[in-house]
């Protein structure tokens, strides 16, 4: 042991000095480098982890929203289609109804026209008759004023009655 100590110049004072040196290195490295760095790295890891979780949640939310959007669009399309079809049917029905109404109206108008024409005809005939009667009266008056006898008178009355 003595020979080892003398050969290698083992000195307990230097051993302690070197131990103190290592102690200083450990303290400084731990306090000024490793501890803050570890804290920073763990904080960053937490942030990244939280970011990944948030991204997952956001992706799920986005997917859900997209599905909802697609559902809404699909429903809207179906509803719009249905409304369009209903409107088309309604329009067609209304069109048919209007046509029917127009036809009826036209028929009524024609009927009324016919009736009016008939009435007009009757009226005209009445008026014509009256006119003829008046003319006949006038002619008769004229004849009477000239020469009237019994036979002529009967004949005239007979003719007038035959009219």
């Amino acid at each position, binding site marked *: 042991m003595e020979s080892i100590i003398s*050969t*290698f*110049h*083992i*000195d307990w*004072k*230097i*051993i*302690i*000095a*070197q*131990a103190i*040196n*290592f102690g*200083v*290195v*450990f303290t*400084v*490295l*731990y306090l*000024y*480098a*490793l*501890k*803050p*760095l*570890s804290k*920073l*790295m763990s*904080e*960053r890891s937490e942030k990244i982890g939280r970011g990944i979780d948030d991204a997952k949640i956001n992706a799920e939310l986005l997917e859900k929203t997209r599905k909802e959007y697609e559902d809404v669009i699909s429903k809207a399309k179906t509803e719009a289609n249905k409304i369009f079809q209903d409107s088309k049917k309604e329009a067609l029905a209304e069109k048919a109804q209007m046509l029917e109404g127009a036809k009826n109206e036209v028929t009524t108008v024609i009927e009324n026209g016919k009736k009016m024409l008939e009435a007009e005809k009757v009226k005209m005939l009445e008026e014509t008759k009256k006119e003829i009667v008046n003319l006949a009266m006038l002619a008769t008056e004229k004849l009477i004023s000239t020469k009237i006898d019994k036979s002529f008178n009967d004949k005239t009355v007979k003719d007038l009655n035959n009219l």
Partner: protein
Amino acid sequence: MSTQAQTETQLITENINEAPKAVKEEISQEITLFAEPIVHIKNLTITNSLLTSWFAVFIIIIISLILRSKLRAVPGKFQSVFEMVVEGALGMCDQVTNDRALSVKIFPLAISAFFFILVSNWLGIMPLGGFGIVEEGKHGLLFVPFLRGATADINTTIALAVMAVIGANVFGVVSIGVWKTLNKYVNLEVIGDIFKEFRKNPSIIIVSPIKFFVGLIEIVGEFAKVASLSFRLFGNVFAGEVLLASMAALMAYIVPIPFLFLEILVGVVQALIFSILLVVYFTIGASDHDEHHEEHHEVNKIHEENRHGKEEDRLIKEAIEEIA
């Protein structure tokens, strides 16, 4: 260096300067197993390896302070490199401990040892070794460099090894308790087991003394750890310095360059080996022997139960056959 030697050196230097016609002594450099003294301050001898060690401490402090001032959430180049080293080293610790919590506890000490040894090793091979003092030796004037690798001095490696081994045991006491740590070396539990389990298992009277003796061997093992750690590191780094000096003596300018690169690598490897061994010792210190012991008991119990089960099966079969 003693005061007498200093005076002699001064006298010789004066003689050389004042009498140019006198026979000039050639200055030589010796490669010694021990670190050469530079200054004596009272009882403390400041050796060149101690100087290098202080220089290494100073460099590490500066690097730590720079790192501390440049720490940002978004890392710069310097911080990124350091983070990469820390992550890698922590990963290596995990491979040894298999437990992240344990790794985190041991890691600061291991990485401190790594950096201290690495910087010391590299400072030893730096060309700054050209600066030094000339003093009177046994065979004429001797050049003593200011810098010698701190780990090329056995005192440094002994200090580190002793701290590692004591630290491992203290860590063991903190982790698993005084009683269990003590029982690793002076296994009083197995002596107690002789009285407890002698009736059940008579062979324990042979096994327990052996276990007790193995515990005592562990004490020797702890000293062996100190010796192996310190001499391995010292031997490798010192051999490297000798190699470089020899190559430089052969041809001063080009031949040592490849060996210089080799020594840079050796410096890293030796620092790494020491740190990993430190982690291994700390992990062993924190491991509980009883857990293995209990596992062994459990396995024996299961075997015993299986054996009993087979015995029962055999008896049932025999009974059935008899009835038949």
